[in-house]
């Protein structure tokens, strides 16, 4: 009975985190982008510096009509937002937040779990792109697939480097084995992982699958109302998951001063610092072209990831 209650409680907490933190990141994006561009951003909704802007947006989206194009493949078109969103909710279950079992569910192959399930989210974009019966959507879908195929490999190789260093693929096990000098040791892998993750989330500067100024938001062109909002939510949930994972794998997660009591705060701080970087990159860099993107993946990220893997192996052999 106690365990069932505890499991339920954990699920509720994860659901709340899943619903709140992406909105916080979204609001941060509004404000940070605005200030970087010499604007103020939302100022009225909710009173204090427009804090309730995204709540208002949500209400607006819920009121809009839910349109399915006449030629679209109805069922797949309607299913796609759920396929895009749910994997990120599942991933959150396995990410350790603090020491001493502060994790939704400690999985034996946690690293594999999160990478595998994150990969499913892309199927949502592919389904949306194909089922919309719109050439811009189809282009977006094709670009999504091409991008995923190019960036999945460096991401996995970088994650494998951390797993090698820790000698385990359990995320809590990796946290337990962490030492501060892992940060400089794995820094190249961290760069590769974070960059490839950005590409997988289709965030600028890797956002040609959704390039609004050339293919009108790609796979999401035909979506309106709540379903469109779900796609947006999945993007911000993706940022949350990517930043949390990068901080757990490469920045030591809950390790820091007073980790015993304030571990969860460290995880949160590192995650939000990375989320800030994601927003910063969006404001700073122009969009890459398709061929530049592919060249970057195959000629820069994969060699770097392989070099990191070799370095990890050498150091591991030397110190053991």
């Amino acid at each position, binding site marked *: 009975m106690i365990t069932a209650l505890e499991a339920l409680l954990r699920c509720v907490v994860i659901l709340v985190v899943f619903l709140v933190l992406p909105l916080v990141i979204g609001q941060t994006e509004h404000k940070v982008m605005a200030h970087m561009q010499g604007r103020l951003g939302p100022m009225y909704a909710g009173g204090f510096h427009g804090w309730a802007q995204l709540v208002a947006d949500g209400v607006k989206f819920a009121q809009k009509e839910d349109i399915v194009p006449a*030629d*679209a*493949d109805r069922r*797949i078109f309607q299913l796609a937002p759920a396929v895009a969103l749910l994997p990120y909710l599942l991933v959150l279950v396995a990410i350790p937040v603090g020491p001493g079992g502060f994790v939704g569910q400690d*999985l*034996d*192959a946690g690293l*594999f*779990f999160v*990478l*595998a*399930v994150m*990969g*499913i989210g*892309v*199927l949502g974009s*592919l*389904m949306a*792109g*194909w*089922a919309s*019966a719109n050439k811009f959507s*189809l282009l977006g*879908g*094709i670009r999504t*697939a*091409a991008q*995923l*195929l190019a960036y*999945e490999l460096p991401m*996995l190789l970088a994650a494998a480097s951390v797993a090698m260093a820790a000698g*385990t*693929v*359990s995320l809590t096990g990796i946290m337990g084995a962490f030492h501060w000098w892992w940060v400089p040791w794995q820094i190249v892998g961290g760069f590769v992982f974070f960059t490839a993750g950005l590409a997988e989330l289709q965030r600028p500067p890797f956002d040609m699958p959704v390039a609004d100024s050339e293919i009108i938001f790609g796979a999401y062109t035909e979506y309106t109302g709540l379903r469109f909002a779900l796609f947006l939510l999945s993007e911000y949930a993706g940022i949350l998951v990517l930043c949390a994972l990068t901080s757990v794998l490469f920045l030591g997660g809950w390790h820091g001063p007073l980790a015993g009591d304030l571990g969860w705060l460290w995880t949160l701080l590192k995650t939000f610092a990375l989320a800030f970087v994601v927003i910063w990159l969006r404001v700073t860099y122009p969009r890459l072209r398709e061929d530049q993107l592919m060249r970057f993946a195959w000629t820069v990220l994969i060699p770097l990831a392989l070099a990191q893997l070799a370095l990890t192996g050498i150091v591991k052999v030397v110190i053991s």
Partner: protein
Amino acid sequence: MTGTLSSQGHSFLTPGGVEIVFVLVGLAVLGAALLTVTTRQLVHAALWLVVALGGLAIEYLLLTAEFIAWVQVLIYLGSVVVLVLFGLMLTKAPIGASPDADSGNRWVALGVAVVAAATLVTLVVDAFRCTWIDLTAGGGSTRADGTMLFRYWVLPFEALSVLLLAALVGAVVISRRHREER
């Protein structure tokens, strides 16, 4: 597998909860697989394949093979199906039925499928008969799998990796030659 083998003290006619779920998921996988080959819409076939392969991952989980289950999701759902969908979108995948993709060999294919399935089912049933494998939690953990793979099955593993490398090099060679011919 690390479970103990015995046929004593277990009845196949009084299944527990896990076995019932296993059979139900198995039926769902079978249904999805049938729909994959019978649906008239190409992309629907790929998406039913997602359901079938995902169901297989659940079956692995029910057999405590956690590592294999996630590898199944990572490789098949995350990569192979995306590759299939990518190929379909690049070629011709209209919304609605695609009658030109129907094959005249479907009855031969059905025959081959039935024979192959019958062979495999007979083989597995004959090999295990009434053997009961007690599943213990962690029996298919990453550590157990890794120990098994790299202690007893290193040679096949290495042979497979050389084979994959050869395929990779072959793919590069083939794609390069085509470019020079143009």
